[in-house]
Every structure is written in structure tokens, then in C-alpha cells.
């Protein structure tokens, strides 16, 4: 499956990456090259094979649903680009 510039722009939008318009065709060629190489996987018979998401046989552990950490807003906000009192300041979402 080859990717064209329109698909690159669509995927970039999904990934929230601004793309300079002139980069899309080159990226399309690059990604198509990678995907063409990946498509050798079609040779592998995977009929009836269970997909593998984790290398661990055990299921994820459960714990009590209790607060174990927190109560330190200064630490949480320490690296924020913009704050006001104990809040993150973000661009306006609703007009």
C-alpha cells in the first residue's frame, strides 16, 4: 500500500503534527518505502495465531483503589509552560 501526500497530511493531522506543505510529497515517498519493506510480513501464515500484545503471561496486577501519592501541586506544576495559582493555563478551548 503506498501513501500519497494527501494521506500524509491526514495522518499528520491525526497525530497533531504541523507539516510544511512542501514536505508532504517527500514524506509520502519515504513512508511508502518503509511500508513497502514492511509488507514482506504478508508472506507469513498467521491463520489462527493469537495476536501478542505483551511478553508476559500473567495478567496485570490489581491494587486497592486508594490514593497513594499526590497532594503536592507545586511539584506537579513545576515544569508547566504557564500556570496561575494551582492551575495549568491552556489556550482558550471554547469560543
Amino acid at each position, binding site marked *: 500500500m503506498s501513501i500519497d501526500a494527501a494521506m500524509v497530511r491526514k495522518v499528520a493531522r491525526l497525530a497533531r503534527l504541523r507539516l510544511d506543505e512542501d514536505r508532504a510529497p517527500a514524506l509520502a515517498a519515504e513512508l511508502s518505502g518503509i511500508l513497502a*519493506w514492511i509488507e514482506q510480513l504478508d508472506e507469513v501464515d498467521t491463520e489462527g*495465531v493469537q495476536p501478542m500484545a505483551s511478553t508476559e503471561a500473567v495478567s496485570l496486577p490489581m491494587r486497592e483503589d486508594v490514593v497513594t501519592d499526590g497532594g503536592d501541586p507545586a511539584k506537579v506544576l513545576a515544569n508547566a509552560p504557564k500556570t496561575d495559582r494551582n492551575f495549568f493555563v491552556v489556550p482558550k478551548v471554547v469560543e
Partner: protein
Amino acid sequence: MSDLTGVTLKAALEGLRTRAFSAEELAKAHLEAIEASRALNAYVLETPEKALAMARDSDARLARGEARPLEGAALGIKDLFCTEGARSTACSRILENFVPTYESTVTAQLWRDGAVMLGKLNMDEFAMGSSNETSVCGPVINPWRSRGSNQPLTPGGSSGGSAAAVAANLALGATATDTGGSIRQPASLTGTVGIKPTYGRCSRWGVVAFASSLDQAGPIAKTVEDAAILLRSMSGHDPKDSTSLPVEVPDFASFVGRSVKGLRVGVPKEYRADGMPAEIESLWAKGVEWLKDAGCEVVDVSLPHTRYALPTYYIIAPAEASSNLARYDGMRYGLRVDGGGLTDVYEATRAAGFGREVQRRILIGTYVLSAGYYDAYYLKAQKVRRRIADDFAAAFERVDALLTPTAPSAAFGLGENSADPVAMYLNDVFTVTVNLAGLPALSLPAGLDAQGLPLGLQLIGRSLDEGTLFQLAGAMESAAAFDHRPQAWWRA
């Protein structure tokens, strides 16, 4: 006093305990070496004040006879590990000013055991790369050069800074991480020892995430025993990482030096790559001889899906990365590029903050997970992943470990593979299989090529059987007697 940076971790720990030198002297010797070796670009942050404070604390404990397992050991930390109060960037512009308010579990355990932090080590951006060239801080230069050449070579990646620092005696050992070969390939290219333990051995908490089902921390060290000592401190169950395994941590160093007589080692024929240099082939054969001489039984095995591991990885890893890196939105931490509405800020921030290779992988990952393509790519890759893991399971019914080359070539020139992403990805052809299967694997230096560059061999073990790897690697290290060192051309 002779140069304190030239000793192994094991020898340094003994010297500290017998008070032959102090932790402060050891730290100072390393800090001076680091300062004089900036041409290598191995460190992206030097933390001399922290190092000296920790060293003085170690000296006080040594004086009281309260030495902990790594008391006074001067280590470098890959910049992927969050270190409290010390900038941690993953060598990405998007985290260029990030100063964690917490410590990763792995580094916290090293400090708990008395280690001293020298600084943060260069790496490929978000650990995505095999040459350290995607770092926003610029590439690391390999301390090794081809005989009679001044051409700068890559130390490999993504843990290029860790490997170069250990090879150039700028740390007694270093932390590293491995998602597709990022510990073992740089170890191979720099004449150092690196082990990626079983998935779940080391906590991923506080390690900047790349591909969470593949990422594992491990050490790069000067010797097999040093790697074993470091891995013990780095390992252990951590409730803060749900994939961390609740299992005992063996005394890995106790396996080094044990007889390997009677162990069965498999040689997988599929690791004979097209166009592989004859030197790697003959070194591999030499490795087989060393093991036979030490009493191992060596048998041929087949891992039929080996060639599909790399394309499988380049679906799974970017898919997980695109999901993990969604967190860099410019709102809570990291770079923010203002202007326009919320979506504009997201898009501008991520475009400015991520380098080209990271953007490429985010795009691939987003594509293979998007509606209409998920089954054809992502689900298919997860099924092939199972096939690859099943190959290993079948092989380990017959053998205790596998022996392969670590990388398909010795260190290559900076810029040599950067134009073609797939050519760069092929560096990981022998290492990526075990990440998909979650198995432990170790690379150790086995010899030099005709240009005088180090080459590594890789041992792959059963899940949670790092002990056997250390046992075999110890025997091979003795047989190889690799005592070559790079010429210190970089010293200011």
C-alpha cells in the same frame, strides 16, 4: 596515584572498601576526564556538585564501615532516566528544559546502593535511532577509530553516550535502555559489555517511554562481572510499573566464573545475514570454539521467522511510540509554541519539538493504528510477533542459550546511513528479535576487525535466566581475552 578511571567497577569497589582511594578522588578523576573529553559529546549534562556531594557521603559511610553494594561507584546515566533536580531531556527539544521532580526507580535503586552520579548521557532522541545522530544535542563520537583514519565514527545507538562514556573511561558503568537493540548494538560498536534483561526485570517507572511493551533498562559496563553487579542493583519488583515482575533478583555476579561444562548452546542459522562481513562470520565461529573448549555442547537450531522481526518491530514500536508521545501537548510540561487556538498550539509545539526521525515514527505509528489499516498492519504484526516468540520457545526446549553476532557491522561513519531510514533500521536485525519475545540478551566484545574496530557477540537466554548468560559470557570473556583499548586521541 595512577589513573583511577582506568579500573573496572569491581576493582574500584574493592579499592574503595580497602581505602586505597576515596570516593571523592574517584569522582574527581572521572569529572576531570569528562571535562577533558567533551570532544566525544558523550555527556549532555555534567553534575559535578551532585557527584562530589554523593561521593563525600559515600566516604563517610565507608569510614563508618557501612558500605552499600555500589558505595562510591561513579556512574553515568542515560538521559532517558528521570533524575530529580537534574535536567532530563531524552535528547529532544520538546523536553529541553524538563527538570523532573522525581527519580526513576532504576536510578533511585543505584543511589540507594551507594552509587555516585556523574551526569546525563547523550542518546538518540527518545531512544529512536541506531547511531546517536537523532539527538538534539548532536551525535556522540565513538572513542574508537579505524586504524590510520581520523574519520569520526558512530558509537551506535540509541545508548551511544552510555557506550562511549564507558569505552572512554568517563564512567565505571552506565545505565542504558534497549527497545530494539539500543544497549547491545552500541556495546558491540564500542568494545563494551551490555545486557538487556528479561522484560519486566527492571522497572520502567520514570524512564521516558518509547515503546512500552519492548522498553527495558540495563547496564553498559567494562566487563561481564561489572554488568552483573550493576544489573543486580537496577533490577527488582516495583509496584509503580504494572509490568515489573514480582520475582527475586539473583546475585548475578555469582554466575560469572562458574563452569559452563554441559550447557547446550544453539547457533541459529537464520542469523547469517546477506552481505555480512566475513570477519563477523569468523568471529562467530571462534565464539563457538570458545564455548566448545569450555565444555559446552553447541548445536544448530532454526528460528524460521527471524527475518520478519525487523518489519514487525517497525509496526509495533512506532505504534506504541505514537501513542506514548501523544502526551507531549505543550500543556503540562515541555515546550509550548503559542499562537492560535488549542489545535494550533498542539500542532506547532509538536512540529517544533520533535526531530525528523521521531516525527517519521509518529506518522508511521499513527498510520498503522488508523481506521482501515489497523488489521492489515498492527494486528498482523502482533501475530507475527507471536510466531517469533514461539520460535524461541521451541529452540529453548533444546538449548540453554543462543549465540549470534550482535550487529551486522562494526562502527560506521557519521552520516553514512542517515539518508535511508531502512538501511539504518537494519543495524538492529540481530537484536530486535529478543525485544519482541521479551528475552534477556547480552553483548560482549569478542575481537577486532581488520580496521581495528571492536565486534561483539550476543548471547540470548531463556526468560529470567540472565544467570546462564553471565555464566557463558564469563567463559567467553576469558577465552576472548579482549584487552584492546581505544587510543585517547580526544583528550583536551
